[in-house]
């Protein structure tokens, strides 16, 4: 009698994930030809147009691009947390261990979040609920996903806070988000993402809202934890410095397209797309003090009625007539890299 009681209390909610056959030999995450549209008042905006990449365990992929290029939308489409409507995933596949998440029913997919793929957001202050304590918000994951009691959840929350290096975690667990400093808050976000030991972390501009010194600390923490747990990390950023420090390979996005993919050394050494080249040239350099900063002229195109041909041609230094009419395919470049530019050879050698 008493035995059944204890069992009942400790009963774990049966996760719908146990019925899904994940293939452990398949890559951790494969995104293939992902398409996302937004239905706006002005028409249909194609926010993501055929993005593909593969992420393996222990690998860091940097997604680079300026604001509005579809980085965050790609991330949220992978997580399945886009606001639908207005957004709609219109095509492609997102395979986790060989299983397409886009074909899953919502109940199963809900359990993929946090358990398998977790996300860290840019602004930790607004991304944490202001009216609940940090410990409550961390513990909620254990209570909702692992059937933990309040007490167990709290103990787990303290553990997590200690893991991400928050001093006096036992006391701070009862504090509210606004009582933490920016860096500490982002550590809380990281702790939240790691709570259920997922395989993949998607970090959407995790350091953009922080001071430079704190940025470095948070990035170092993230990189350490990733190495330790052999996580697949997707790092979304527009900060070329951050990308260079921690990523293995880079996917550059422009106006919803993945315009170039290569490993981090190659891309910094010899960019294969004019946009990447222009981005690299626009990084301010100490040895060019006093000179004018190089900027990419013009603005990114509207996503509702994008220009025909290559979406970058109005701002491109290499553009010819062909770029105005023919949309470039993804060319395979030597050394297992890709570029969506008709004149990639010229760019590589320039």
């Amino acid at each position, binding site marked *: 009698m008493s035995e059944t009681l204890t069992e009942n209390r400790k009963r774990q909610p049966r996760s719908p994930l146990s019925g899904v056959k994940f293939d452990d030999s398949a890559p951790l995450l494969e995104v293939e030809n992902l398409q996302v549209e937004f239905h706006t008042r002005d028409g249909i905006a194609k926010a993501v147009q055929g993005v593909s990449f593969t992420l393996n365990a222990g690998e860091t992929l940097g997604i680079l691009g300026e604001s509005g290029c579809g980085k965050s939308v790609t991330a949220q489409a992978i997580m399945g947390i886009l606001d639908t409507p207005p957004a709609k995933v219109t095509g492609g596949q997102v395979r986790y261990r060989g299983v397409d998440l886009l074909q899953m029913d919502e109940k199963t997919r809900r359990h993929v979040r946090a358990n398998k793929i977790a*996300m860290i*957001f840019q602004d930790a202050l607004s991304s944490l*609920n202001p009216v609940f304590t940090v410990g409550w918000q961390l513990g909620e994951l254990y209570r909702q996903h692992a059937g933990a009691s309040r007490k167990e959840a709290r103990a787990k929350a303290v553990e997590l806070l200690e893991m991400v290096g928050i001093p006096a975690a036992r006391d701070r667990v009862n504090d509210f988000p606004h009582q933490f400093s920016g860096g500490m808050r982002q550590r809380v976000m990281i702790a939240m993402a790691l709570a259920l030991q997922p395989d993949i972390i998607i970090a959407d501009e995790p350091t953009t809202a922080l001071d430079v010194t704190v940025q470095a600390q948070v990035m170092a923490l993230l990189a350490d934890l990733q190495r330790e747990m052999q996580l697949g990390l997707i790092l979304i950023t527009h900060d070329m410095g951050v990308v260079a420090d921690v990523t293995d390979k880079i996917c550059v996005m422009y106006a919803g397209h993945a315009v170039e993919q290569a490993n981090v050394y190659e891309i910094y050494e010899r960019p294969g797309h004019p946009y990447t080249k222009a981005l690299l040239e626009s990084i301010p350099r100490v040895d060019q003090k006093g000179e004018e900063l190089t900027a990419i002229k013009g603005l990114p195109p509207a996503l509702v009625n994008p220009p025909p041909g290559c979406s970058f041609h109005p701002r491109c230094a290499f553009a010819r007539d062909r770029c105005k009419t023919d949309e470039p395919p993804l060319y395979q470049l030597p050394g297992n890299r890709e570029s969506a530019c008709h004149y990639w050879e010229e760019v590589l050698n320039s």
Partner: protein
Amino acid sequence: MGRYVARRLIQFIPVILGTLFLLHLLSTLTIQVVGDPVRALFGENAPPAAVIDQMRADYNLDDACLEQPGNPCLGLFVDRLGQYAGGDFGINFRGRAVTEMFIERFPVTVRLTIIALVFETVVGILMGVLAGLRKDKFADNFVRFFTVALVAFPTFVFGTLAQLFIGLQLGLELRNSDWAPDWLGQMLNVGYNADYPWLSLVLPGVVLGSFSLASIARLTRTSLIENLRSDYVRTARAKGLRTRRIVGIHTLRNSLIPVVTYIGIDIGLLLGGALVTEGIFNIPGVGQLVWLAIQSNDTPVIIGVVTILTIVFLVANLLVDILYAALDPRIRYE
């Protein structure tokens, strides 16, 4: 939280003293400018001077400062504060204590307030949540139409219509029928009935709460929609929580913060008595007391009741401020 409450209580002292002083200034200035209310009471048939002097002494109107316009009568204010502290808010022109008259009527107003408040809060929030979750769908448009209609109808129109159609025509049908239970007929009646102190206030309470119901529904809707778009809701979704939990726990608590502010102000207003509603349904509440005092020029009653209501309003606001801090931790640590 304890420290916040303590600080709030300390802040309360200057607020209540300041408000009472302003009220005192208003009433003394009125007497100084308009003239002695005792003399005004008798009009042309003035009784002997000795009687008038006696009455002036009884009503604390014999202070010399009351004949000097602009004199703040600080001595009188201190006297009054002492009386207020002892629960004495003066006597009316027939010699009855204002406090006694107020206590007699206040429970009715409190019951009416509770009914109106429960109705407007529960139905208002439910409608607001429904509209917010089904933005631009049928439910949202229905709530929009309904609330605009409620706000557009003045209470005296809405109250009279409710009294006529629900209280009189429908109610009479129910009270005369065999099948309807007694409570239903009494609930939908034309006016206050002391034998049914709660039931007979339901219809007036609904009328009284309907205006605020519209505001609460709209406020909840807007706040919910705004919060559903917020970053922390996105985080909650990324945490793999159920939609019910995301809306019911993460979003709703944040969305209700402005609603509580509104309800707080409303409690104070409702406790001050509802002149129009109490008039239509003949409810012997505080609103009626003030109304009768104004009509009969009973100055001490007006001053006394208004003072009590001010204190009630301030205390209600204090309680809501504390509730507000319980709901939003950011307030506590400012």
